[in-house]
């Protein structure tokens, strides 16, 4: 049955780092908001968030995020060792005689040790993993996730940021580069993915990895070529051969680089690019409707 709900979540991802994910995400958010859309920008690149540099949000609140880790009560522990045997990460090890060690940085918060403990000696404790900031940038809702320095709990942090997706808003999600766990976690259940690449051999190599990932995840996607005009035509040829739509070609314009390097929004500073981003926004809105029609 055709459910004509519009695109609610767009993820802006890439294989290669530095292709311009944030540039595309913030300019798309800005454009959509200008066109009257209710927009929420979520920075899920929690290891290196940078959307705030461009959106300059007024932060209205911040929340601490923690992950569940085991805390062992030595008085209740019987030394049976079941906790250590179920852990796939070596995060808890029972030596003997109630001598249980925990390694919080290795824990993945599966809760397995807590469940298998027959003595009820293990309770969930909280490990601080980062912060989420909420704010406003003009008409754009801003949600920024920031992983605590030294923490390796990236997917857990991303899950928390994604809980702030609102169905009454168009959510534009800034994704980490690559095809790692962090990217998979971010892309889960999004409506549409924009893969940003640059027309270079590196860009193409990593674009192919990203395309492989989104196809495996069965996600609708299209490609944005940034710094169009440098490198060669291989990325374009690849997209044509694979039947992948290229929905925006942002030229290699020195003024764009200057604007980005000073933390500004391209469409705000260079009106000639407003049309291209408006078309990108219209495209993203239309594609979901087509998919729904096919169902």
């Amino acid at each position, binding site marked *: 049955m055709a459910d004509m709900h519009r695109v609610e979540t767009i993820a802006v991802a890439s294989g290669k780092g530095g292709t311009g994910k944030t540039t595309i995400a913030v300019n798309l958010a800005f454009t959509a908001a200008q066109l009257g859309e209710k927009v929420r920008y979520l920075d899920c690149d929690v290891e290196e968030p940078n959307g705030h540099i461009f959106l300059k949000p007024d932060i209205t609140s911040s929340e601490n995020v923690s992950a569940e880790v085991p805390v062992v009560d030595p008085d209740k522990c019987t030394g049976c060792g079941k906790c*250590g045997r179920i852990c796939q990460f*070596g995060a808890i*090890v029972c*030596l003997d005689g109630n001598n249980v060690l925990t390694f919080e940085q290795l824990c993945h918060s599966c809760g397995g040790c807590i469940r298998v403990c027959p003595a009820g000696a293990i309770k969930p404790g909280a490990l601080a993993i980062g912060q989420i900031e909420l704010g406003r940038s003009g008409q754009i809702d801003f949600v920024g996730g920031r992983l605590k320095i030294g923490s390796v709990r990236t997917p857990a942090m991303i899950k928390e940021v994604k809980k702030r997706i609102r169905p009454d808003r168009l959510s534009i999600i800034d994704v980490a580069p690559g095809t790692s766990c962090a990217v998979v976690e971010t892309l889960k259940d999004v409506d549409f993915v924009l893969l940003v690449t640059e027309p270079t051999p590196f860009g193409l190599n990593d674009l192919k990895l990203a395309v492989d990932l989104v196809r495996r995840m069965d996600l609708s996607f299209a490609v944005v070529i940034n710094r169009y005009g440098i490198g060669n035509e291989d990325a374009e040829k690849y997209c044509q051969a694979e039947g992948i739509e290229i929905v925006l070609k942002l030229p290699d314009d020195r003024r764009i680089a200057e604007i980005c390097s000073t933390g500004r929004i391209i469409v705000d500073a260079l009106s000639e690019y407003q049309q291209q981003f408006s078309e990108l926004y219209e495209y993203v809105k239309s594609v979901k409707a087509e998919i729904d029609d096919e169902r």
Partner: protein
Amino acid sequence: MKIAVTSTGKNLDSQVDPRFGRAAYFIIVDTETMEFTAVENADVDAGGGTGINSAKAVLDAGAQAVLTGNCGPNAVRTLSAGNVKLYTGLQGTVAQAVEQFKAGALKEASSANVEPHSGLNG
């Protein structure tokens, strides 16, 4: 006493494996009789936590001391909690390492001599 030596092979003539967490084998040697058994390391290709699991394995084997090349902080913490003495920087064959230990030529290590994950790609 029983000691564990990280080894690339299954006997006393094998070379000492420089990695603790990702050692191919642990040779458990009785220093009085020189009788030994080889324990295959199930964690050699694991993603992480190998030092901890390897420390648990040598503890379960009853070793009271570990002779190896390099040892990271999580393994050191686990061995220490289990009251297992640690000696790092060993080279040569397993038999040579045991002889050095028996001769009292080794100095006990009190902390890790490498970072976590140092045994990867090594």
